[in-house]
């Protein structure tokens, strides 16, 4: 017997809304729809080829108009009190209640399905954060104008997951939606105005592709660009869906493979073909399946694929190779690769081998095994015996190609805030620079000369040993006023960075697994070591920076206190259980990033170095540090403190040399997970341009003389900002009654 045709639900309300706008949607600027004349227009069609509406492609003039509106919007929005902002978000919740049908129908028409109830949950959650921002996140200030750019395959929910926290924290937002999310995003902006959002606080720019996002980012008023490309969505229930934001790979233990495959076969009997987004996707699916078959994969299909058209049956690909393209770069369509493993350790290795790291789902009745596996998987969220739970209170950090920012929870709010005590990275129009030439100039040659013969030569520190640069070359360190030679330091290069990272990655997992109190003891002993050699270090600050001996000693004292602070912080950086609406246990776990490359600032060379070093190692990271090129001596003198400490050999490495050259080496090393950079504007731009494959978490500061961060302050937000940059968050969800 058959079940009959699927009843298509009515989309009358959405169609009426589109008709009201004459099927051509403009931009949403300054609280109203703007339809500039003579712009390029792009028409949207649904999967059956029917016309949905047309959207305007924004040009430079629209962007600057939008940006200036956003600046005004920011003033009005951030000028409100916390509870006024919370009220607006809550009111939008009830406005959505009234117009829920229109939103969900419009999402359906645009094939970016999103249930209004999920949006309402987001609004409730973030309105509570808006209400309590100044109470619970005291001393942090909104960034200003935030641009949210999403790719075409993102749903409205994913878009809202970025926009709402940014608004809740008091920023104004420019949204650049993908093609399918454009109409719902415009509708959402309109509803926001009805809820009382000041004009300009939320603007929507539509365009033809991602290049619009890049143009918006270059506008100097925009502070933060938040990208979201292909992320988890709460609506996916299984691997076989028409539009999936997650590509699943199934790992099955070898011993039960046959019975699992038998069950899959039985379960898939009678499953119908799934519609693809377009006929072009069909070509990709066919190619992927063919390629997998050539590599020995066995197909399980409920029915044979129709010869052509945008339809494909659910397909399981057994016996895939882990490096097979269908696993590494999944094609669209209902394909599920199945891989086998022998033990859970092997499963973790296979899982972590994948270039993606958004989420994992573990199925086992053994809770100990589940939690152990959850801890060792490098993904943002882990679901035990369930899948696809997403809630705004779960903090999730992307791993590897899935992005590096943390979304959700209190932790996810900090991307839209900066400490009130420091100014955020000032934006300027992009410099024109040639990326391939950055950091390639040769170091000046050193020739024997009467003035520099008897100078002390400092070594670098790799794998727990002081050593010379691989090239054997040295670099002259100049005294504070310039001119002459104060000492020599080794001129490290790419090979030295490589050696340092190799040493660091060996010890980092052990260091991260150590108990927080054991890490604290080690950092305390490092502080004690610094205390023992305070005079030597103070002397090095004195001769390097020209500060008086007293001032130098004060900096050493402050550095000792700072290290003690970090030692105390070791067991204070903690996760917890989260209040998810569903019944079960949700845990958030802070995890170390891995190996962090740090290019140190010039200002307060010792104090800034221990502040950054402490943040990284207290949270379980390993470090490769590049001392300030101008004032390297205090850091190089600190090597003897490191040598006498009981830090694991290789955890902290110091490579001196040309800053730009070493920055390039750090940026291009695939193991390094994060780079903290204090240096030139060109360097910042180079890193933003380069660190996209693989993605690195960047923490950039463009330093200028006589300004920038005050390292001597002991404000709590200084340390908080540091450690929040040094961890990533994982959430684990275990459904229970």
């Amino acid at each position, binding site marked *: *017997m*058959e*079940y*009959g045709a*699927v*009843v298509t639900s009515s989309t009358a309300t959405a169609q009426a809304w589109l008709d009201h706008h004459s099927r051509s949607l403009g931009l949403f600027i300054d609280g109203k729809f703007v339809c500039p004349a003579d712009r390029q227009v792009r028409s949207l069609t649904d999967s059956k080829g029917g016309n949905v509406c047309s959207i305007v492609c924004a040009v430079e003039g629209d962007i600057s108009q939008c940006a200036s509106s956003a600046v005004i919007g920011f003033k009005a929005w951030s000028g409100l009190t916390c509870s006024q902002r919370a009220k607006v978000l809550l009111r939008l919740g009830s406005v959505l209640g009234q117009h829920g049908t229109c939103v969900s129908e419009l999402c359906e028409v645009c094939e970016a399905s999103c249930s209004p109830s999920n949006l309402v949950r987001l609004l409730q959650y973030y309105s509570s954060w808006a209400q309590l921002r100044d109470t619970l996140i005291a001393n942090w200030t909104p960034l200003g104008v935030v641009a949210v750019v999403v790719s075409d395959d993102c749903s409205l929910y994913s878009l809202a997951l970025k926009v709402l926290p940014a608004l809740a924290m008091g920023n104004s937002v420019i949204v650049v939606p993908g093609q399918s999310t454009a109409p719902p995003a415009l509708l959402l902006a309109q509803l926001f105005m009805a809820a009382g959002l000041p004009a300009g606080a939320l603007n929507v720019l539509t365009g033809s592709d991602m290049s619009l996002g890049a143009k918006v980012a270059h506008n100097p008023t925009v502070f933060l660009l938040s990208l979201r490309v292909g992320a988890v969505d709460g609506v996916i*229930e299984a691997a076989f869906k028409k539009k999936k934001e997650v590509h699943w790979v199934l790992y099955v233990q070898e011993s039960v493979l046959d*019975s699992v495959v*038998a*069950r899959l076969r*039985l379960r898939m009997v009678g499953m119908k073909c799934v519609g693809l987004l377009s006929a072009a996707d069909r070509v990709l699916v066919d190619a992927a399946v063919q390629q997998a078959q050539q590599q020995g994969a066995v197909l399980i299909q409920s029915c044979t694929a129709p010869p052509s058209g945008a339809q494909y049956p659910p397909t399981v690909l057994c016996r895939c190779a882990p490096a097979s393209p269908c696993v590494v770069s999944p094609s669209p369509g209902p394909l599920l690769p199945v891989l086998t493993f022998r033990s859970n350790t092997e499963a973790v290795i296979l899982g972590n081998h994948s270039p993606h790291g958004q989420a994992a789902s573990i*199925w086992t*009745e053994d809770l100990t095994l589940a939690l152990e596996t959850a801890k060792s998987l490098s993904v943002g969220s882990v679901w035990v*015996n*369930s899948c696809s739970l997403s809630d705004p209170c779960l903090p999730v950090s992307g791993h590897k190609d899935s992005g590096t920012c943390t979304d959700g929870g209190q932790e996810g709010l900090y991307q839209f805030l900066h400490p009130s005590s420091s100014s955020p990275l000032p934006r300027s129009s992009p410099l024109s620079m040639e990326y391939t030439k950055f950091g390639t100039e040769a170091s000046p040659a050193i020739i024997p000369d009467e003035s520099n013969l008897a100078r002390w030569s400092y070594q670098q520190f790799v794998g727990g040993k002081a050593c010379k640069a691989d090239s054997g070359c040295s670099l002259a360190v100049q005294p504070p006023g310039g001119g002459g030679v104060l000492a020599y330091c080794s001129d490290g290069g790419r090979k030295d960075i490589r050696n340092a990272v190799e040493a660091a990655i060996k010890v980092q997992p052990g260091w991260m697994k150590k108990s927080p109190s054991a890490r604290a003891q080690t950092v305390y002993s490092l502080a004690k070591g610094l205390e023992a050699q305070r005079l030597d270090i103070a002397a090095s600050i004195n001769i390097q920076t020209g500060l008086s001996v007293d001032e130098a000693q004060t900096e050493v004292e402050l550095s000792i206190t700072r290290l003690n602070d970090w030692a105390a912080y070791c067991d204070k950086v903690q996760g917890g259980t989260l209040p998810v609406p569903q019944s*079960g246990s949700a845990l958030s776990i802070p995890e170390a990033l891995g190996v962090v490359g740090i290019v140190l600032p010039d200002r307060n060379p010792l104090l800034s170095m221990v502040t950054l070093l402490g943040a990284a190692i207290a949270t379980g990271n390993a470090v490769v540090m590049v001392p300030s090129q101008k004032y390297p001596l205090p850091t190089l003198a600190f090597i003897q403190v490191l040598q006498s400490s009981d830090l694991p050999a290789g955890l902290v490495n110091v490579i001196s040399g040309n800053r730009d050259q070493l920055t390039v080496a750090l940026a291009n090393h695939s193991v390094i997970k994060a780079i903290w950079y204090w240096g030139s504007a060109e360097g910042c731009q180079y890193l933003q341009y380069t660190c996209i494959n693989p993605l690195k978490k960047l923490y950039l500061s463009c330093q200028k003389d006589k300004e920038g961060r005050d390292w001597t302050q002991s404000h709590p937000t200084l340390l908080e900002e540091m450690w929040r940059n040094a961890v990533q968050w994982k959430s684990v969800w275990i*459904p*229970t*009654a």
Partner: protein
Amino acid sequence: MPHSWALDLHWISSVKVNTQAVLKRAQQIQGRKIPKKQWQAAWLLKAVTCIDLTTLAGDDTSSNVHRLCLKAIQPIQHDLLEKMDMHNKGLTTAAVCVYPSRVADAIISLKAANSNLPVASVATGFPAGQTPLETRLQEVRMALADGATEIDIVINRMLALTGQWEAMYDEIRQFREACGDAHMKTILAVGELGTLTNVYKASMIAMMAGLIFIKTSTGKEAVNATYPVAIVMARAIRNYFLCTGHKIYHHVTGQYADYDELPMA
């Protein structure tokens, strides 16, 4: 054809059912859109043909059993069937089901109406099963002697709850033998088994003992057929099929007022 498969206690002891995952799956299934229009009517008619129309009350007499039998022969108003062009398809329920003492009444009523609809009888101390094994076996034999062709037995919940799976297997085998060629269904009384894991184990034991039908409940417990238990039993059946190649049937019990409440509609 009676079949049986050796008791595999190791299998039984290693079974674990993840309650939350089953509940989630049940939610998903319930969230699906149900067929409408002629498809809805077709599935409803199909459901009618699977019903064991039942009266199991203390005040049953020959007159209400008679009415029940007539209803079973013609479950749907003739004019409605005519509109669907189903009036001459011989649509009846699957059987009528009564207490052992009323079997004779049902047989007489059905014969009088020229119907060969099977009569099912509950037995083995229905619904609690708390009577000595000997009387329970005797009950089966007497119901058969009165003309019942289907027997619905209830399992001994005490044995299930205390984990005496081997003893339960033996009891069911004895019922099976007492039934001879009659059609036997096992009622698991899932509402009294405590956990879904026990539901799975009881289903497995019943199938290993050679049952072709497993049934959720008596209709007399506080909780009867629900989606989660139906899922667990269907999965046990699938597993048994994968291991033995035997197909087992699944039966749900309960009083349903509305189409939307029908599990596995």
